[in-house]
């Protein structure tokens, strides 16, 4: 045990990651509290504003993210089985899916901004209070989720590098395993964001 060995404590590292995810649950939890309160105050406005969302793009994005999770899971199993080539391919696919998600998200944001709907915009400030809050929450929650996706993409890129250089191996796969946990968690957050913003019409 000790310092050097502690580093190789795979289970310790996994626990650490889970604890971090608990933190993330409460971090997003803070936003969900806000959402819940404002939705209970302004149900009609939330209902109406959700209709403005682009359901098609939202659904595609959900599918993209779920698929990326599949790729990530496969990539990890591949490392554990020693098929590094396969793993790298699937990691790259995960990254592509992540980037696709961000691109589609950008299109959605762009659509709204083009219509003048963004925080503090003259158009938005003239709307009803519940609608201002809905779109404020929309930007903040999807924005912070997007930042998480982006961080995930960066981390997975490092994992690709580590797998190629033999830093992540069949015996020592903590890093990629924990990356996977993070990626799946980000996916779960989206699973909840999707109905809350697109499906409450």
């Amino acid at each position, binding site marked *: 045990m000790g310092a050097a060995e502690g580093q190789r404590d795979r289970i310790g590292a996994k626990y650490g990651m889970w604890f971090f995810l608990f933190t993330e649950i409460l971090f997003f939890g803070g936003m969900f509290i806000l959402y819940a309160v404002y939705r209970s105050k302004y149900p009609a406005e939330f209902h109406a504003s959700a209709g403005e969302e682009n359901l098609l793009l939202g659904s595609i994005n959900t599918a993209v993210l779920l698929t990326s999770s599949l790729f990530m899971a496969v990539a990890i199993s591949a490392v554990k089985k020693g098929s590094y080539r396969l793993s790298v391919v699937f990691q790259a696919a995960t990254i592509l899916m992540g980037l696709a998600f961000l691109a589609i998200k950008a299109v959605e944001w762009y659509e709204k901004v083009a219509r003048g709907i963004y925080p503090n915009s003259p158009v938005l400030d003239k709307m009803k209070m519940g609608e201002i809050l809905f779109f404020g929450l929309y930007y903040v929650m999807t924005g912070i989720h997007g930042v998480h996706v982006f961080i995930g993409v960066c981390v997975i890129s490092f994992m690709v590098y580590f797998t190629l250089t033999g830093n992540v191996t069949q015996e020592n796969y903590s890093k990629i395993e924990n990356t996977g946990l993070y990626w799946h968690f980000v996916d*779960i957050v989206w699973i909840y964001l999707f109905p809350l913003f697109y499906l*409450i019409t």
Partner: protein
Amino acid sequence: MVRDAVEREDHIGSYGTYILIWAALMVLLAVTIIVAKVEVSKYSVLLNLFIATVKAGLVLFFFMHLKYERGFLKGLLLMVLLILASVIGLTFSDVWYR
């Protein structure tokens, strides 16, 4: 350490299971969109949240291997979710009765 003996042999998920889970997730995605569009009842929002929870459960238990973890970790996760739920509940004890 002895107490980790069980965990030493880590679970390796099979590709087949993963693909099945993925397929289930896709089906649930379709269902949830349909539920929302058809507006079967005014409870469709709750139903959608329920479906989301099932999806999240699938990801948690299979993709994140929670199914193969010790009860300890599952218990902790449950505790965290309960705390979040209680915080929301206490906040609403203000919001609803104000």
